[in-house]
């Protein structure tokens, strides 16, 4: 298995700081903004950004987890049903500006499912998407991210591996991995 480092711990920190500044620029006081981390892997990134943002704007920002499993369009098209994770949204998203956060944007199908899943909780006034890694030219659907940590050129056979300390890894690192044939 060949691995190539995309972002190391320091670079990741700088990137996250920049993403937070961009969010503050767009949302200023976060009075009507909420953050939704996408299960299962987007929630760790969402927690990191949420903690940084709260420190920067010095106020509480609602943070929730959104699971898309039951809204996926590949159900019955894969061998094993996807396992669901917890959805936890204990605030109202009706009329709010929602910032969806995931680690990697690939085909866009998970984001489509997330939009679908989110509507069950109300009608947000605006939805934005933040991703740490945007894999270029791989979209199956007309979906684009509003905030991007790093654009990466990838092959279909490659995979982006996000290792965060919160997930139990020793250091924050983002890798590009060649899948074994």
């Amino acid at each position, binding site marked *: 298995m060949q691995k190539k480092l995309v972002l190391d711990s320091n670079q990741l920190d700088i990137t996250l700081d920049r993403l937070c500044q961009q969010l503050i620029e767009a949302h200023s006081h976060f009075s009507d903004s909420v953050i939704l981390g996408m299960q299962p892997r987007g929630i760790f990134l969402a927690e990191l950004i949420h903690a940084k943002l709260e420190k920067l704007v010095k106020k509480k920002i609602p943070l929730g987890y959104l699971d898309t499993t*039951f809204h996926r369009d590949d159900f019955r098209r894969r061998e094993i049903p996807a396992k669901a994770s917890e959805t936890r949204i204990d605030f109202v998203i009706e009329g709010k500006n929602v910032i969806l956060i995931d680690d990697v944007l690939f085909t866009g199908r998970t984001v489509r499912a997330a939009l679908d*899943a989110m509507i069950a*909780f109300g009608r947000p006034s605006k939805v934005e998407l933040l991703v740490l890694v945007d894999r270029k030219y791989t979209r199956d659907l007309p979906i684009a991210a509003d905030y991007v940590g790093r654009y990466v050129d990838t092959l279909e056979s490659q995979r982006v591996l996000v290792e965060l300390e919160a997930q139990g890894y020793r250091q924050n690192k983002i890798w590009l991995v060649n899948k074994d044939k």
Partner: protein
Amino acid sequence: MSKLSQRHLLGIKNLTRQDLELIFETADNFKDVINRPIKKVPSLRDVTIANVFFENSTRTRLSFELAEKRLSADVVNFSTSTSSVKKGETLLDTVNNILAMKVDMVVMRHASVGAPHFLAKHIKANIINAGDGTHEHPTQALLDSFSIREKLGAVEGKKIAIIGDILHSRVALSNIFALKKLGAEVMACGPPTLLPKYIASLGVIVEWDVKKALAWCDVANVLRIQLERQQIKYFPSLREYSLYYGINKKILDDLKKEIVLMHPGPINRGVELTSDAADSHHSIILDQVENGVAIRMAVLYLLAGANSPK
């Protein structure tokens, strides 16, 4: 990612503990879904399910139908009283005709033991047993264990007494299988005539005195006397049964401990449970009904997902 070891849900007997736990974890998520403002998810939108009920049912049938609709499946309902079964059509013919209309899953209740197992050998669709005679009622046992897990935090190590007409109860048998697999201690309690002869060989404790059973257990699952299945007299009168085996508020209060009271329904109030006991704070009977929908959604989801149309 994981899947069930079986294509059909015929009984608890052939499920593994991992299967049970996977169903519970999935049901946790569905319980969350059915408590949202929009209680529906699109997972099964390309699946058609037939509910085939050869025997009467209120709760199970409603619960399955709601579970199917909350998963966005297409649902057809069938009951014998209004069908051609009355004209002499066989079970296999009836079901094959339903399947010819492109049905993917069959939920079936039948008065004969083994009817769903027979079908599973002959047809391609996934089959879910919603009760076969006095044999098994797997989704009821799943929702019972799920309710215990929710109320007490775990099933393992807990003491559960199943009280009443064990002989005619499919709920009892499925519950014993499920509880034993999950590591609980199980006791069967009832008049000797209503306890199957070899019940102890399933690894359950046998007790004839309901007060001793209640003093022993953490959870009492009380069953109905199934008069419709009793061809001969097993006890002198219902009044006498309720005098010796009926549970009332006073018996519960005298225990001086917290006990969880369950009943699969329908309750015959005043026979196995008095109203003040059934409606007391011990009772989780209505939670069981709510959990029934979540459990059935989980079972349908896991079975349908493993059966890709390709």
